[in-house]
């Protein structure tokens, strides 16, 4: 391993050095292939394993072959400490990932994203003192890794809290200004650190200050965001963690880290933009949070709300040919996915064709409804994406909206003054009958009046979604 193969730029390199770089190349290729396979349903599981294999390889070779600038390898005591730390992390990570309830998956993904950001933040913080005074390049990547990692860390923790129902959405108009001030001061302090000619040992106060500011900004940035905007923010934070890891890759001049990080950063960014597109809004608009309230034309006559009794609903559904269920976050809150599946199997057994229409931003994270319904064993073929179901909506006898609001709001088509005007929606209003399950007459997250509720074809079924569907199921059974 220590055999010197030759010299590059005046530095000797050995067999071990070469093998290490080679293993990084293989790891990077496994990341790319893994991600590629992950984006197709049939190969996704294999893709995940490939990427994991690449990660394992890079970890082992680093442990065995990495040398510091003085040419010393990692000593055996250090290896033990590292193995212990990895053992602790792996045991906790594995157990939580295996034991946690399926419905808690979204918050778990956020939590693990937070730990990745936290690790990047700590690595940058600890590497900063090693930088040379005035070495703008390496200080720049360190500071960027620190800020992005810290924002991803605290932001993802808040996102975790929101998905877990521990943290509410706090949205005040003045928060936009506080966030702006926070962002500007964070950036100003970062620039000050980067261009300062002082050695890092004299700048520690500034780097700790920067860490604190970035952490606070992460909290304040995610705090006001809720509802349909959550999927955007979660994939954005995911992208941040990747970029932060890539910045750390610069510190070590490690290509596997740079490639892996940027790969995730780019993929996360695409997903973020996809989510934005599904809401017809720009990313800036989501971040600044110029959403909700006002706008909607309230002068339009509202018409009347018409309720439906359980028995009427049962009859209507049983004698339909085509039923489309449109789920939203309310379904997740009520944990009504299992009973919803019972309802659809019951109807299918009566010869009714039941499909689920999935809006890209329904729920609180990308693909939330898919995970939720998969957990209840709803067959894959029954889930239809928005663009595929909409042309068929006029033939649908009953559209059941469960805990969704903005994604079926026809104001997106016909009310230019509405904040959601232009957002693609599921065309529930084209169905022959519409049943809306709602807890009460509250407005959706966006705080916009939904005229679908006042539509002549619409009947409301008030109450907790789980209870309503349960009674509906027994009502249909007793028919």
């Amino acid at each position, binding site marked *: 391993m220590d055999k010197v193969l030759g010299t590059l730029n005046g530095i000797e390199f050995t067999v071990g050095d070469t093998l290490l770089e080679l293993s990084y190349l293989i790891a990077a290729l496994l990341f790319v292939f893994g991600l590629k396979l992950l984006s197709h349903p049939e190969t996704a599981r294999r893709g995940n394993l490939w990427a994991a294999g690449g990660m394992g390889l890079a970890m082992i070779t680093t442990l065995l072959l990495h040398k510091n600038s003085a040419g010393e390898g990692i000593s055996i005591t250090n290896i033990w400490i590292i193995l212990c730390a990895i053992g602790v992390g792996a045991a*906790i*990570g594995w157990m939580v990932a295996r034991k946690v309830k399926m419905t808690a998956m979204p918050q778990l993904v956020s939590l693990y994203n937070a730990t990745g950001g936290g*690790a990047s933040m700590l690595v940058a913080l600890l590497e900063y003192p090693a930088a040379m005074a005035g070495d703008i390049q390496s200080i720049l990547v360190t500071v960027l890794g620190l800020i992005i990692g810290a924002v991803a860390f605290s932001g993802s923790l808040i996102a975790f809290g929101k998905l877990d129902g521990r943290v509410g959405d706090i949205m005040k108009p003045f928060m936009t200004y506080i966030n702006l001030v926070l962002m500007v001061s964070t950036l100003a302090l970062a620039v000050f650190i980067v261009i300062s000619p002082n050695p890092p040992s004299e700048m520690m106060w500034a780097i700790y200050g920067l860490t604190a500011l970035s952490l606070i900004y992460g909290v304040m940035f995610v705090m006001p965001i809720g509802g349909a905007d959550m999927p955007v923010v979660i994939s954005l934070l995911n992208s941040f963690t990747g970029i932060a890891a890539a910045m750390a890759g610069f510190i070590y001049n490690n290509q596997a880290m740079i490639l892996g990080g940027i790969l995730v950063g780019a993929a996360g960014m695409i997903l973020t933009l996809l989510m934005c597109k599904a809401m017809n809004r720009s990313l800036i608009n989501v971040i600044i949070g110029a959403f909700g309230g006002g706008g909607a034309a309230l002068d339009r006559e509202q018409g009347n709300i018409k309720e439906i009794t359980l028995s009427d609903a049962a009859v209507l559904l049983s004698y339909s040919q085509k039923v489309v269920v449109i789920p939203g976050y309310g379904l997740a809150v009520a944990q009504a996915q299992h009973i919803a599946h019972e309802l659809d199997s019951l109807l299918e057994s009566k010869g009714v064709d039941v499909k689920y229409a999935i809006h890209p931003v329904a729920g609180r994270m990308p693909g939330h409804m898919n995970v939720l319904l998969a*957990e209840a064993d709803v067959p894959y073929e029954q889930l239809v994406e928005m663009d595929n179901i909409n042309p068929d909506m006029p033939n649908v006898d009953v559209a059941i909206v469960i805990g969704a609001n903005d994604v079926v709001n026809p104001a997106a088509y016909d009310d230019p003054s509405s904040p959601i005007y232009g957002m693609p929606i599921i065309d529930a209003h084209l169905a022959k009958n519409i049943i809306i399950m709602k807890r009460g007459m509250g407005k959706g997250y966006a705080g916009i009046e939904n005229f679908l509720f006042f539509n002549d074809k619409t009947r409301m079924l008030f109450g907790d979604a789980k209870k309503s569907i349960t009674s509906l199921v027994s009502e249909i059974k007793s028919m």
Partner: protein
Amino acid sequence: MEQFLTFFFEYKEAIFIIALSIFVGIEVISNVPAVLHTPLMSGANAISGVIIIGGIILVGHADLSKFSLDLILGILALIFGTLNVVGGFAVTDRMLEMFKKKKK
């Protein structure tokens, strides 16, 4: 300007890698079906745990002769990184297992 040019020259390989990986990242996940959004995000999230390599290097060359806060924070970084990697891949696998089960 000179500063910028120096930066580019010193990091030219890395900048090439960045430019190409952005392209690869976009290319690889374009046309991903909505059903895979969550697992894809979760799997990508696990890959971003590659920061653990930094943690290994950091603790690997840490001076153990004296007790320091830096060492504790380095170990914490390692634990965080492992949580991200192991937890991330395990959660993704479990999710995909669930998708597979209901397919048949």
